[in-house]
């Protein structure tokens, strides 16, 4: 049933018509819906992926790009673990709007949110208006965690995008978990210092064990 290790919220944002819904459908259902009409409000999908041996559940909120849904979509930023900002490489205006989206992310999202920039529709070859280098530069300058060019039409990098999201979030989460664990362990050790030599030996033992197992 619900035997996943972590559950992450992934929110897709970006101008209307850059292909957010197609990316999500391609990833979750393996189809490219031709003639996809504009999303109304927010679309919702779930997909479980594997990172190493762990099952990771991705909760994907695919928001509408149109202005009139802005106040609904804004409410999703805060609880997101990852925000995927999408633009269309064959549509300069969709790229020009990125600073505006970035502003929204900065003001509503969690500061530690995983930010990913995606240039979609690379299949459009000659119609490309935004060179890859420009996109990459933008992502570097604005401290995105990851940049990727995709195509929902020919499936370029679609799975990779979401796998990256899952992997990075999982790794981050594991580090946090370890820290919490360490902190707890430390806390119990310090408070029970009065427990005397038994505890100290015990602690040395566990440290030794963990060193051994790491190798």
């Amino acid at each position, binding site marked *: 049933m619900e035997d996943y290790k972590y559950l992450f919220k992934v929110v897709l944002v970006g101008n209307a018509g850059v292909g957010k819904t197609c990316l999500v459908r391609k990833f979750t259902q393996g189809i490219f819906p031709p003639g996809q*009409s504009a999303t109304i*409000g927010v679309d919702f999908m779930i997909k479980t992926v594997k990172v190493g041996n762990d099952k990771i559940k991705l909760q994907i909120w695919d928001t509408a790009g149109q202005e009139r849904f802005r106040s*609904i979509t804004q*409410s999703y930023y805060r609880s997101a673990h990852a925000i995927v900002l999408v633009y269309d490489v064959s549509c300069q205006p969709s790229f020009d709007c990125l600073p505006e989206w970035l502003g929204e992310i900065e003001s509503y999202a969690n500061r530690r949110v995983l930010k990913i920039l995606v240039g979609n529709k690379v299949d459009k070859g000659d119609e490309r208006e935004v060179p890859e280098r420009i996109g990459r530069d933008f992502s570097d300058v604005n401290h995105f965690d990851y940049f990727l060019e995709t195509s929902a039409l020919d499936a370029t990098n679609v799975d990779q995008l979401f796998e990256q999201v899952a992997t990075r979030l999982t790794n981050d989460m594991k580090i946090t978990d370890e820290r919490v664990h360490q902190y707890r362990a430390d806390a119990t050790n310090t408070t*029970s210092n009065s427990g005397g030599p038994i505890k100290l*030996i015990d602690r040395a033992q566990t440290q030794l064990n963990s060193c051994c197992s790491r190798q």
Partner: protein
Amino acid sequence: MPDNSLHSKYLSGVPAGRKNGVRNAAVEKRTEELPEKQFDFSRKIRELRLELEIKKREEERIEKDIAIILEENTIDGGEQNRSFGLAVTRFNNQMLVVENSAKQLTSALKNISALADTISGRVSALDVAKTRVVGCLQLAGDMRDLGVCAEGIDDAIRSEDFETASQHIHRFLTLDQAVFQIRDFKQKDATDSIRHSYEILSSAKERLSKILKSRLTEAVQNKNVAEMQRFVKLFPLIHEPDEGLQRYSVYLNQIIDKLAEENLAIMKAGGTDDNRRNVLYADTLFIFFEGVAEIIESNLPVLEHTYGLEKLLDFMFILQARIDDFFKRLLEEFDARRRLSHLNRIVDDVLHNRKLNEEEAPDPLEIDVIASEICMMNTSVEMYWRFVGRRIGSKDVDMARSPSGDDDEEIDEEARLERQRLRKEAKEQKMDQLLNRSRVGTKMQELIGSYCSLEHFYMLKSVQKAIKSDAKEDVGGLTSSIVDDVVFIIRKSIRRAAGSGNVDSVCATINNATALLDTVVHNYLHQHIQTGYVTSSNFASEAFTAYQQGKQVKEAAECQKEQFLQALNNAAKLSELLIELQKGLIMEWSKVKRPPVEKNKLEHSTTQIEESAKKFSSLARHGAEELFKSAIKNKIRQKADPYHDIDRQMTMDDIEHYEAHDPFVDQFLVQINCLLVEHEPALFPENYEAVVLLTASEIARQIEVAIAKCQFNRYGALQLDKEYRQICAYLTNVAGWSAREKLGRLGQIVSLLNVETIDEAMEVWHHSKTMTTSTTRTLTLPEVRKVLALRADFPTIAIKSIE
């Protein structure tokens, strides 16, 4: 064969008898010649004779051998050979018979296949003939119909029997094209009559179409409903349904416009009911949609039969234009009167911290009213869409099935399903177009967007107000007003959003609500917990700061203590209520039928409420720890001090003495109980439980520390066991089984000490490994050694050697 080879073997192995005979003859001949030559060969001859004799014997022996061997081989081998030969011959004969039969069969089959070919040829010829006959009959029927139509049409038109005329035209238009190809035939009279009919009917169609159009237009102008309904039905028959719908919708649009005008007029005048002024626009919209639904309901049956459902959707599109227009006007009025855009701007500014001018900020109550009204408007719109969906969408299945009844070509099942799917898709697309992309649809989405901001603002302001007016509930209450207020506000907002029927707005409201809980409310409680719990031990420093601030020292401390406890209890209670709220919402929504995607959205949004609840619960736990640390922990340590002084090298007499005069535990537990009882009334049950559990852990730790410093003998351990049981019984009594788990480690130590031998200790240890739950860890080997070393009567070497 084997016989032959056997023979040859023997034959070749021995020189042939005949050959010897020849040689003998030659020898005799030579002997006859001897006297003449005068040579003395007598010795030689003797020798030769001897040799001859030997050879003769050898020959005899070999011949005998051959005879024996031959005899041996022929006795049974020959017999077999014969019977085998016979069998082969019989078999051969039979094979000949079979071959003959097979040949006969082949020829018979050839015959049959030839016959079958002929038959099937004939059948297919018959089939062709039959289809031709059917075709001819159809054609003849069509031609006859054509004639009848041609004859009847003029009369019908002349006598204004348009129904009959339309039927004729319909028949004419649905005739097989083949009929008209007959025109090119050679028989002149036949083709003439057909051409004649064709021309008559073509012109009649034109005439009829014109007449119907003008009649319908006329009827529409005269608002003659009966006439309209009569004529509008006829258009599909002459294959011009769009023309009919167009004209008919002119009429319906007029009615809709009239309805719109009336409603707008009433609305502008301020409505009919003063009590409902707050929801005037929502009411107007509701009444208007009711009216439109009624109009559609009463007119649809007329169209349904003759036009088919697919056309109805087109018809709805035509009507939608007028509805859109009304909606636009209503919204303009709404916006102007309720100052929606103005409010929206301010609300956005406040929410995004762009402007913090409190003067300008609107009253949450005003926002509350408008938010409700927008929700009602959305409800009306959703209700109308549902009506349209039900009226046009629900008959989907019938529509898809009816053609399959006519087609008896089952082979095309797949193609039919495919067709059905395509048709369904196209229809869904059209419905989506109508619902989501029409002006009513998009404007409503915009309005819902505004609503979400307004709702967010309302929650924010109300929660801020609740914090400001936070007050302790009536005497004896553990929590303050903020808990109920906050839950009330959030519940109200979420339920209002749910009432609008728009799932996205519900999710957005939940998102915003949990954001408020996690930030504003959480910070408020956290700040009080952060200041810490004042006790006499840290009272001095607190008193000093209070003195500096010029406050009454005692009062300030009391106040802070109270605030701390209140925040602690509030966090626990809030967590409980939020879980309740989430469950309640899920229950409420489980009754509503929704598409799976929307159900999923709601389900996953509500989990956020649970997450917020968990955050409050951990805040409460943090607070309980603080309280425990500053008010209880040190006291436990102090009270456990005398425990170190008991000598654990006891005698039986000591134990009996302690039986009557308890050295420590009774007193200790009484003191602990006092500590707990002092705090119990001030704590929310969950917080109290947390404190008790912390106490249990601390007691266990203190006892463990004390034990580690003692040396036990068997009686000392026995006494310890008795004390452990006493403590255990007390804590279980106060806090239940979970407290006992905290004592798990101590329990292991105690039972390790209570053994007779080291072997028994190992048994106890291994047994405890299998018994321990996940919460208590088994003692490690070094720990076990350490514990056993506390027994003074156990040899150190034996302890060291255990594994």
